[in-house]
C-alpha cells in the first residue's frame, strides 16, 4: 500500500481549511457534514485546487510542496477521481469513455484488465451504448471503471452515491466493497453517510468546520454518532 501524507492550509473566502494526517489504509474515509471541507481537500489532492501552504505527498513523491515550489499539474498526478455527478463524456460511447484514460496516458491495451474491471462492475452489456440514456447507477459504475482503467495510483471518490436514491445506493455499495477487496488501488472516500463509511472505509478522518476533529479506524464513527446524538 502507499502512504498518503497531507498537511495543508487553504483559505476560500471566509472558509479556512486546515488538515494534516498520514495514512496507508486501503480506504481512507473523509466523513463530515457538507461544507466541512472534504471535497475541497480531495480537489487539492487531485490538483484541481492548490493549497495556500503545505505538502501533499504519495510515498516520497511530493505532489504539492509550497515551500519547495512544487505543484504537479492534475494530468501528471495519476490520481483517479470519481465525481458525484459521474461526468461521463456525452460525445463518446461507454466504451470510448472507459478507454479515454488509457488513450490519454498512451498505455498499451490490456484486454485482461479491461475484462476484469468490466466484470467487476457488471457493465459489459452497456459498452456499445451512448451515455445519454443510462441510469444514475449505471453512470456511476462507468465513471468508476473509467477512473480505474486509467491505472491511477490513488482513487478519489467524492460522494459517489450522493446523487442516488436508496435502492441505487444498495446497488452500488457492494461494488465499492468488492473494489476495496480485489483491486490494488487505494482510495480516499468522501461521504456524509456513516453507514456507507462503516462498510467501506478502513481509516476515517472526521471533518468539522474545516478541521479534522478525529482520525482513526472506523470505530470513531460511533463516538461521533454518540457525540452528535
Amino acid at each position, binding site marked *: 500500500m502507499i502512504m498518503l501524507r497531507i498537511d495543508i492550509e487553504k483559505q476560500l473566502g471566509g472558509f479556512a481549511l486546515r488538515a494534516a494526517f498520514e495514512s496507508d489504509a486501503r480506504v481512507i474515509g473523509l466523513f463530515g457534514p457538507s461544507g466541512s471541507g472534504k471535497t475541497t481537500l480531495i480537489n487539492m489532492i487531485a490538483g484541481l485546487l492548490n493549497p495556500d501552504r503545505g505538502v501533499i505527498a504519495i510515498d516520497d513523491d511530493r505532489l504539492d510542496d509550497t515551500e519547495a515550489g512544487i505543484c504537479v499539474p492534475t494530468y501528471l498526478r495519476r490520481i483517479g477521481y470519481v465525481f458525484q455527478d459521474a461526468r461521463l463524456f*456525452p460525445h463518446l460511447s461507454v466504451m470510448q469513455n472507459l478507454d479515454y484514460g488509457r488513450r490519454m496516458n498512451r498505455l498499451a491495451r490490456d484486454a485482461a484488465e479491461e475484462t476484469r474491471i468490466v466484470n467487476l462492475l457488471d457493465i459489459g452489456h452497456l459498452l456499445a451504448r451512448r451515455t445519454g440514456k443510462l441510469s444514475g447507477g449505471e453512470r456511476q459504475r462507468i465513471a468508476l471503471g473509467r477512473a480505474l482503467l*486509467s491505472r491511477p495510483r490513488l482513487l478519489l471518490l467524492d460522494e459517489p452515491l450522493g446523487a442516488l436514491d436508496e435502492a441505487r445506493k444498495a446497488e452500488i455499495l457492494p461494488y465499492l466493497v468488492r473494489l476495496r477487496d480485489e483491486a490494488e488501488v487505494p482510495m480516499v472516500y468522501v461521504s456524509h453517510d456513516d453507514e456507507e463509511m462503516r462498510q467501506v472505509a478502513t481509516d476515517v478522518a472526521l471533518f468539522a468546520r474545516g478541521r479534522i476533529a478525529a482520525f482513526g479506524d472506523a470505530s470513531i464513527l460511533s463516538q461521533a454518532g454518540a457525540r452528535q446524538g
Partner: protein
Amino acid sequence: MAWLLARRDFWGKSVLDAVVHLPLVLPPVVTGYLLLLTFGRRGAVGQWLAEFGIVFAFRWTGAALACGVMAFPLLVRPIRLSIEAVDQRLEQAAATLGAAPWRVFFSITLPLALPGVVAGMMLGFAKAIGEFGATITFVSNIPGETQTISAAIYTLTQTPDGDAGAMRLVIVSIIISTVALVASEVLARRAGRRLHGL
C-alpha cells in the same frame, strides 16, 4: 483564438477582443482602406512582405486577405460562445484521467463546441462570399484576379446588356448559399445529438 478569448484572462485581452471584432463594426470601405495602407506596396507590412515576394495589393491573395479579415469576427464569435458553454467540469474530469491541456482541447472541448464551430464557419463563409466593400477598396475589382461574386454582379448591372450575366451569377450565388446553409444545418443537428449522448 476563440479559445483564448473564451477561457484565458490576460493583459490586453479586451484590446485583442476589440481588434478582432473591429471589421464587424467599421464600414467595410474603411477596413479595406486600412488594409491598403498596411498591406499595400508602400504599407509598413506590405513593403516588408514584398521582399519575400508576397504581394497582396491588387492580387487575388489580397482579395482572400480582405475576405478573411472581414469574415474572421463572424467566425470567432459563435465558436467562442460555444467554447464558453462547454462544461468545465468535463474538462477537469479529462485532466484527472491524464489528458494534457491541449489533448483536453482536441478530445473534449472542440468536439463539444462543434455546433458553434459549424455555425461560425457558415457565417464566415457567407461573409466571404458576399464581401464587397473592403475588397473593392483594397484590391479593386479586376476580373479573374480580385473580382468577388458580388463585385461581378455589381459590374454587370452597371453594363448595358449585362442583365442576363448578372442573373446567371445571382442564381449561382443563391445555389451556393442554399447548399452551405443546408449543409451547416445538417452538421449542426448531428453534432447536437451527439452532445446529448444519444
